[in-house]
């Protein structure tokens, strides 16, 4: 109940109301959201595929991450901001949508997976930075990331089909 009242407040904010009631605001924000979420998923896939050891095997992993991850993070910040705006337009209803809930849970999994990569696996990166096939635990983290982000896109698309028009 506590969360619902926060979401109801968000729904009633001038911003949430404007996005809900103005005919073109929602599509413009939504298009921006799609642009940056595809950038997040496409760019992180470049890192994941290398971590799994499928492509660009002769290119050092830390070089790939340093060229790609700044793009991923920038895109993620914009995707999250535009996502929050879209959410505010119909907060209570989104929060009750199962695909939305699944998408948020998947983002948590992606975050934990990233922490494991950065805080645990990264400690001995010197030993596998140049490896065509990194150790199993690193390849696993890459595969988990790839699957989770693909699932984020799938659940995101299903939200649109399971939310009735407002």
């Amino acid at each position: 109940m506590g969360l619902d009242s926060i979401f109801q407040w968000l729904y009633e904010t001038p911003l949430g109301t404007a996005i809900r009631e103005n005919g073109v605001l929602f599509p413009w924000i939504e298009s921006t959201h799609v642009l940056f979420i595809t950038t997040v998923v496409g760019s992180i896939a470049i890192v994941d595929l290398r971590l799994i050891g499928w492509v660009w095997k002769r290119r050092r992993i830390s070089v790939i991450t340093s060229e790609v991850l700044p793009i991923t993070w920038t895109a993620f910040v914009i995707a999250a901001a535009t996502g929050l705006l879209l959410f505010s337009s119909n907060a209570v209803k989104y929060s009750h949508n199962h695909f939305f809930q699944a998408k948020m849970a998947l983002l948590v999994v992606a975050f934990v997976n990233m922490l494991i990569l950065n805080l645990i696996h990264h400690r001995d990166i010197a030993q596998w930075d140049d490896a065509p096939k990194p150790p199993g635990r690193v390849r696993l983290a890459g595969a988990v990331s790839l699957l989770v982000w693909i699932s984020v896109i799938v659940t995101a698309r299903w939200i649109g089909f399971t939310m009735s028009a407002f």
Partner: protein
Amino acid sequence: MATSLHAFCQWLSETPISLTIQNVSWIIPTVQSIHILCVAIIFSSALMIDLRMLNIVGRSQATGAYAARFIPWIWITLIVLLLSGSILITGEPTRSLENPSFQLKMVLLVLAMLTTLGIQRPLANAEGYWDQPSRRKVLTKVVAVVSLCLWVGIIFAGRWIAYTNTAGD
């Protein structure tokens, strides 16, 4: 022209394959998800090449090597993109073919493909074609910005199909 397009859409929407796509509720969301994943791969590949040409990323590797890494992904994924797009058109011909956003998207797609070829072709004969700042500095940046704008435009036009559906189906 408009009427014959409309007649074609009518005919297509009554074919058994179109009716199947319309009536099996999971097909369109699933195919749209695959379509967006393809967009993610293609857009990110193009983005990497464009940002390289703008000297924003990957200065440790030549543009030619960058293009060699990412351009194959664009063409291969494009096949899946066009296939999934064709399924969506077959399922909702009027919503797509007669929609101004869809028509704009197709024009932008052709231009983006031509731009990609324009980046790719000179590299076949001269690997360092886009890496000679003294000779093609401006052209390189213009081509990169045009490419980026076209792909961004495709994504926006694609999402707007849902909002400029004049057919009312």
